[in-house]
């Protein structure tokens, strides 16, 4: 019985072999190693994104926040009938 984990020469499995552009990219990317680094990169990106977001939200002034949060209520019940 052959070993289950032997890597044979790589053949693109799920992609049309005629796509030259794909092969061009693939010859570089298939050599990428250490996929484990991806979760770390992603966590870092999110952390940075989140900190910047928090910082700016903190800085928003109260006046504009009030205006914004009242937008849905501006037309309140002028033209409509309450069913309660």
């Amino acid at each position, binding site marked *: 019985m052959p070993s289950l984990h032997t890597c044979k020469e790589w053949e693109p499995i799920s*992609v049309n072999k005629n796509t030259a552009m794909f092969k061009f990219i693939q010859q570089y990317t298939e050599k990428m190693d250490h996929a484990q680094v991806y979760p770390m990169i992603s966590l870092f990106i999110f952390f940075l994104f989140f900190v910047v977001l928090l910082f700016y939200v903190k800085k*928003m002034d109260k006046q504009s926040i009030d205006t914004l*949060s009242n937008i849905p209520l501006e037309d309140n019940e002028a033209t409509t009938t309450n069913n309660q």
Partner: protein
Amino acid sequence: MQVEKFYYDNRTVKNFAYATMVWGAIGMLAGLWASLELVFPSLNITQYFSFGRLRPLHTNAVIFAFVGNGIFMGVYYSLQRLCKARMYSDMLSKIHFWGWQLIIVAAAITLPLGLTQGAEYAELIWPIDIAITVIWVIFGWNMFATIVKRREKHLYVAIWFYIATFVTVAVLHLVRSGELPYTWLKSYSFYAGVQDALVQWWYGHNAVAFFLTTPYLGLMYYFLPKAANRPVYSYKLSIIHFWSLIFLYIWAGPHHLLYTALPNWAQSLGVVFSLMLIFPSWGGMINGLLTLRGAWDRVRDDVILKFMVVAVTCYGMATFEGPMLSLKSVSAISHYTDWIIAHVHVGALGWNGMLTFGILYWLIPRIFATKLYSKKLANNHFWLGTLGIIFYAVPLYWAGFTQSSMWKQFTESGQLKYSFLETVTYLKPFYAMRSLGGTLYLVGTLLMLYNIYRTAKSGKLMADEAAEAPAIEVEKSVHKGEHWHRKIERRPVQMMILSLIVILIGGFIELVPTFMIKSNVPTISSVKPYTPLELHGRDIYVREGCYTCHSQMIRPFRSETERYGEYSKAGEFVYDHPFQWGSKRTGPDLAREGTGNLKKSDGWHFRHFREPSSMSEGSIMPSYAFFMERKLDTSETGAKIRAMQSLGVPYEKGYDKIANIELMKQAEGIATNLRNDSIRISSNKEIIAIIAYLQRMGTDISK
């Protein structure tokens, strides 16, 4: 400043509202019927309504017809008011409405006919996929053009959710629909095996996120303040909620594939981001509930608020449970069981259903300029709905735990304690109780249909509702020192691009390495493409929706390897377009059906398909006697082989020409086996192909 007079379009809102109610009732009825089939297998009436075909009809109807029309109803109502402008084009609104309904009708015809792509929530065939793309673009066009001509400077947070929904659903749909047509109704997925699985659950999870969640959060941010008559609790929190939610959601898909053959790093990625998701989700829930601060006394009397409070609470419960289910140790217990079905229904019945009902009760009297026909009926609906959810979810939670612990139990001598069938028959009473819950919920919905019908009849539709607002010049220039977010808030296109970037980061980092890095899918030299007959058999397997009850993925647990054999490897699925790992085990796993202890004779399979309970007493599987009647359509064999070749499956050049000769040879062999087992059947029937496929399963690595 000059005040402009204009009219809101309520006709489109009404159309979508009616559509959501009617399709909702039909979708729920399909679900109820499917659930009863598990208790009374004789309800699998004809091939068209067998469980495997009915269940996709139910899920698609509820997601895309009930919730889909609910989204459009809410968006068309709220967007016009938030922008202080009529929808950009009545013609586009009309095309959008009728186009979407036609898509639903097409789905309702094709799914019972067994025309499917075999990917959960993406079953619809390629011509319908194209129609969805066109109609979605029309919706986006209408929405953006309305935003552009608005009379309100800022984009309220609800609109951001609509924009993120539009852009992300477009990306998800395009990537998931990557398929190669080989006839005008059929196609194969571009992706195979592990990669197809990752694309599927990246899509599947985000269909939950960006079709069932973000648009409904947008609706919550508009309709809850309206119903409570007070602004949202914290607008700042809504900003954080929005950006964190769309950033995190897109990564969470792999939590559907824990302990499978998916590379481990991708599984961990899914776990971490799923756990983090609890924070924005609960931020949103708290923001919703606290909007009612100081108005809690009104919840006692106001039925609309009751619906909304239950909806937001269910959202909180489902989004707490989701991250917990994403922990590997919890997934080991919950995956493939009814626990997951309970979980999604807390979301669907609770969050989507109850919010839709609340909005309908609020909105219909307003656009018809009348009062709700009966508050009492609405209250009855509320209680039927709430009890329905409880009666639905509790038995299935119980069933899920029971099922999992029965699967995993060993005797003192180290044997599996229960056969798979014992676990199935044990669960029947729970399935019956679940159907009771579903019935209550459906009856509530029917009460609402009547109540809304009487309400509409008592008023008259204000098809064009007059409104006034000052015209504004949307500033193009940026003020010095102005807040960055407020600049984006005014610019829908930038908002869309930023949302797109945020979701693409997740998509790319997750998907690209899986496709590119060779060590992610170690090849196995003994794994060979399917023979033409097996390929036909596999397509029948997909057509019948066998994946709705059977998995093809053995996890590396002793309880599974003892029951099913060697755990599944990524390299075994490289020719599977589409993958068929499944997500639920109402029946046993089939990954090694053709090998080891599980191997059965051709005759056994024949008799089992004709009458499952004759071979497995108490089985709830539908009868597939029509496989013995239906002739195998070999006219498509060549096209199938050529399509597979284009997708990279290494059939020899010119194999499509001789494929049918080999097919007949293999079919004759099986027919002879059956004859030796005193079964007379012609070799050109579908049963021969499906037996060939089942006998092939899992055999590659034992060669």
